[in-house]
């Protein structure tokens, strides 16, 4: 029987991680921020695939890779709707729900050009102010940003 294209991509992974349900406009941003272009492992990237939920979605499949907590935090900030599946021996053994971290160190850049973190060698820190609205507050200049405004380093 002939399998559909997306099924083929997922099935072809023996061990590794699948990031599914990525909004299509975020896919290459995620590749860049997570530095997936630097990896040696096999990577399959699909974008603008049909999705009932998102309209168009992206999928990234990486062999022999398990994301660290910090990387998952970055993913949660970039694409909170994405789903993470860990695959072992062709089977999905774990699904990870992304959730916004309570506190984000160093990952985000403050959007406020007058913030101390943009003026002097000071590491950034953001605290989650409102989980429902996805609003973070800069620990230093107290500027609030929502997920559409954040700048991930």
């Amino acid at each position, binding site marked *: 029987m002939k399998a559909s294209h997306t099924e083929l991509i997922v099935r072809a992974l023996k061990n590794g991680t699948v990031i599914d349900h990525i909004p299509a406009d975020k896919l290459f941003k995620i590749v860049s921020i997570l530095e997936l272009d630097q990896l040696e492992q096999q990577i399959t990237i699909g974008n603008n695939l049909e999705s009932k939920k998102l309209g168009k979605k992206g999928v990234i499949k990486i062999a022999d890779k398990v994301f660290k907590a910090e990387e998952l935090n970055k993913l949660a900030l970039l694409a909170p709707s994405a789903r993470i599946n860990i695959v072992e021996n062709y089977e999905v053994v774990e699904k990870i729900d992304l959730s916004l971290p309570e506190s984000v160190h160093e990952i985000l850049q403050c959007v*406020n050009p*007058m*913030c*101390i*973190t943009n*003026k*002097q*060698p*000071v590491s950034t820190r953001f605290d989650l102010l409102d989980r429902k609205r996805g609003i973070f507050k*800069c*620990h*230093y*200049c*107290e*500027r*609030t940003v929502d997920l559409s405004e954040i700048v991930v380093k």
Partner: protein
Amino acid sequence: MIKANGLVSITDCEKEDILRILDLAEQFEKNPNPHLLDGKLVATLFFEPSTRTRLSFETAVQRLGGRVIGFSDAATSSSSKGETLHDTIKMVSNYVDLIVMRHPVEGAARYASEVAGVPVINAGDGANQHPTQTMLDLYSIKKTQGRLNDLTISMVGDLKYGRTVHSLLMAMRYFNPTYNFIAPPELRIPEQYRIFCDDNHIKYHEDTDLNSVLKTSDILYMTRVQQERFTDPVEYEKVRNTYTLRNSMLDGTKDNLRILHPLPRITEIATDVDSNPKAYYFEQARNGVFARQAVICSILGLV
């Protein structure tokens, strides 16, 4: 709550902190010269000039018997040689018991409080926070109204960039205020503060017409449109003279109405208002010394 490492933001203050500071300020007003700071040395580090705030802090310290070192302009400090804030603060921490700092960069005070070995009081960090101003505003409101609860407060002018407005708005959340926000569309109160009011069940009304709220207000909090916050001089010219309060406009206002202004004023309050008993902005500035004495002694654990 107000921590031993200083007072950086009014958002760190809980209701009990505020009430305690206001009670202490009242005591210092009755007796402004107790020698609580004998033998203490305070640094006033002003990386941008602010004569009013610096003199107020230095008066507060010296009236308590403490002594002051510092600078009033970054040009005369080592930061003009490229020293980082981190290093300046580390160095000054070695010398003094408390640092009072004004800095043009937002978040500078929070950062300083994290690297300093002594408490830091934020005397203004750019457009962000100026918590002792908020304390003196609260003290002035309580003193003139006899209470903080259930007041109608009209905030007028630059509600977009005005940090005193934002801090006062947040600090009053414990006291069931009703707000009128009077500003030109360009300087409207930012969305995050409207959300803040909604989340805290605070009633507010937005308008561009100052006259529409005068008769119902208990407090009229006037602000200056700050030229330094505008990058475009054309935008500044468009809004700078939008609101001018004149004495004749105060006819028919409530007896308990008081007019507050963080000062300096330019054109937003005509000088004919000054002699009206409802004008309170100069006494308000005087209250700053008592509020700052209260904050300093509270942080140093002397009261």
